[in-house]
């Protein structure tokens, strides 16, 4: 794996490998000293052309727990938001010796362009591009679903498992959602059955070939007893004429597509509720549903760090790189903690925390 641009980059084996590695990473995060020396001396740049404090912090935490140097490059607004700047920024980061670039961009395909235009040698991780993909979100969703619905005594994280036989409903603004696209591809790759639920205005023309069923009626889909229900964020502005006029009113949206206590009660006991956040409480999800024991939303956040650690690890230290240790097959102790001096890699020791914002 050279870059992670889309969940379609991952076949079943590669996806399971990321999830299994994430399980190892998660195990180390239960310890008092969470830091691993694996990426010491490597530089990870968080290049964010679009605000997302949550995603940036998650990637930053992941990189720091692997002892990488982290540079946050907020390129939003003013002069850097247009055209040529992506190229100039890439050239700058290349000159600064970035080993990995985590990019969030409002334009679909910007990470693809960054990875393939010849501007940088760095590994590129897509942290969300326009309406296209957000692969680490889908991976953390799959990790969370696998843990809850396939894990058992002796294998709480469901290591080695796929999601075959599970039914996942993805509900909300599919049209504008990179989370939905990433999840449909990954869930399908892992063997799950996916049903998209949305008003017809919020489904893309051309959704036909997607490996998913489509329904306009949430109650019908919930009656099928899905194992997981993933609620997508719906922006209130989509209702206005300027926002596209996709639905008549927030109230009507909530009535037809919101997950509330009544709908929650119709689900089988084992079913879980996911949301990529940030939530619009009272719009796509009620407080009852969001705070219920079935909701694994807070856990998704924690799993996000483990999954992003796994992705950075596999991109920068996987596959025989001397700076890393054996990945998926190794036991958890193979990913030794920073306190264990024995496994400090040969690379020049560098400060383990750097967070100066440049730009």
């Amino acid at each position, binding site marked *: 794996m050279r870059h992670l641009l889309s969940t379609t980059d991952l076949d079943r084996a590669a996806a399971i490998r990321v999830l299994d590695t994430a399980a190892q990473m998660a195990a180390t995060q239960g310890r008092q000293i969470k830091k691993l020396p694996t990426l010491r001396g490597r530089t990870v740049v968080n290049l964010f052309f679009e605000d997302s404090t949550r995603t940036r912090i998650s990637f930053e935490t992941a990189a720091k727990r692997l002892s990488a140097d982290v540079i946050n490059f907020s390129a939003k607004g003013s002069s850097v938001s*247009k*055209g*040529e*700047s*992506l*190229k100039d920024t890439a050239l700058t980061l290349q000159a600064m010796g970035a080993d990995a670039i985590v990019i969030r*961009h*409002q*334009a*679909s*395909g*910007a990470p*693809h*362009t960054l990875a*393939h*235009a010849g501007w940088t040698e760095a590994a590129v991780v897509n942290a969300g*591009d*326009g*309406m*296209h*993909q957000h692969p680490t979100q889908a991976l953390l969703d799959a990790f969370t679903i696998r843990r809850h619905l396939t894990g058992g005594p002796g294998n709480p994280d469901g290591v080695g498992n796929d999601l075959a036989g599970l039914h996942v409903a993805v509900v909300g603004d599919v049209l504008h959602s*990179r989370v939905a*696209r990433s999840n449909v591809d990954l869930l399908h790759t892992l063997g799950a059955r996916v049903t998209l639920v949305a008003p017809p205005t919020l489904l*893309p*023309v*051309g*959704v*036909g*070939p*997607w490996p998913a069923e489509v329904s306009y009626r949430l109650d019908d889909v919930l009656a099928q007893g899905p194992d997981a229900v993933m609620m997508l964020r719906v922006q209130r502005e989509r209702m206005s004429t300027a926002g596209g006029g996709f639905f008549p009113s927030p109230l009507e949206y909530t009535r037809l597509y919101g997950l509330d206590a009544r709908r929650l009660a119709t689900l089988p006991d084992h079913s879980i509720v996911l949301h990529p956040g940030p939530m619009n409480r009272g719009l796509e999800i009620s407080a009852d549903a969001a705070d219920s024991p079935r909701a694994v939303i807070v856990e998704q956040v924690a799993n996000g760090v483990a999954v992003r650690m796994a992705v950075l690890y596999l991109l920068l230290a996987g596959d025989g790189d001397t700076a890393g240790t054996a990945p998926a097959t190794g036991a958890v102790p193979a990913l030794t903690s920073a306190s264990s001096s024995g496994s400090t890699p040969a690379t020049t020791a560098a400060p383990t925390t750097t967070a100066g914002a440049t730009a």
Partner: protein
Amino acid sequence: MTAQYLLKDVRILDGEPTDVLVAGGLVAAIGPEAGDAAENAPDDLDVIDATGMVLLPGLVDLHTHLREPGREDAETIASGTRAAAAGGFTAVHAMANTTPTQDTAGVVEQVWRLGAQAGWTDVHPVGAVSVGLAGEHLAELGAMADSAARVRVFSDDGKCVHDPVLMRRALEYVKAFDGVIAQHAQEPRLTEGAQMHEGVVSAEIGLAGWPAVAEEAIIARDVLLAEHVGSRLHVCHLSTAGSVEIVRWAKSRGIDVTAEVTPHHLVLTDEEARGYDPVFKVNPPLRTQADVDAVREGLADGTIDIVATDHAPHTREDKDCEWAAAAFGMTGLETALSVVQQTMVDTGRMTWADVARVLSTNPARIGRVEGHGRPIAVGEPANLVLVDPEQRRVVEPERQATASANSPLRGRELPGRVVATFLRGRATVLDGVPQDDPADPRFAAGRVTP
């Protein structure tokens, strides 16, 4: 004194090999008389062995963006018409979306004059329909028609004349001077923020869709308006199967509508967008294979009257970026004839006479251009292009005559090569090379400079 040229063993369109003498700005002789006349010719006779080659009337482009005035960093009238000559054109229509806009007699005359000075092709400025392409007030269409540039084609291309009342008035008004409204059919509300064809590929790669209906709805409205007021309508760069159907229906009703397709819509599909390379970003967008098949069929059966390039040069910085930030458009003057040969002639859909019809005769007729698109006969003006259909070449945008490198056909091998282009008997291209005038300081370095 201009040289004389004897084209030996050339096929006129699909005919048997013969000889053609170009002299005095005219097709001076054809057949055995050409050789006889050449024997008595002065020293400056240039004999070209044209065995296996095809002679067509000089090509006429109804849709060219020359970018001057305003964006001389992307193209100039001199560099763009030099590229046109290299592609076999003897006349081009310069679209109105320049800065300042070609919406007054003064600006269209300036463009016309710069074209004449450059001397590569005839340049016919297109006049804007509305002031500043803003779609609000009619530009002074009559003044442009009566100017030295003699404008007959009016278009807000780049933008759609979406207000039905303004469109109706424009259609009616230009009847006074036999003009035509060339519509860029794009319903603006349905295409806000649109990046590519709306369909399976856009759904997957997450680019905002440009639905076929946004083109078809405007064409349907406009053919009905044209019928109602009895005017002439031209549809620019028609790109969908539905548009072909609507135009076919309109023609069957006797509506005075003509339509064009671009070379890129004859050969490329929206699948090209998957790599997010903005060189494939164009407006209207590349469509599906079914649409490509439909426009080829429409061109072959005459529903689509012409091929026009929509040559749209852009600087590197306007394309060297993420898709959404990139400009729409691609170059086409130097590859148009090859694409038509590849998709229409080599596949058996069209003859060379058909090529002459869609790339010369029909565009000259629609644009009311005199002296171009004429039959190749003794006494006709020698606006001609000599093509070698047997040669093949790989497209290298940096080596083209256009000042911009945004060709979507980079690296592709295409059939056919323009060997020579004659503008009123003067060779603008010989041996495939533009004939820069060494006496002209602009060409001192062998290359046009702005």
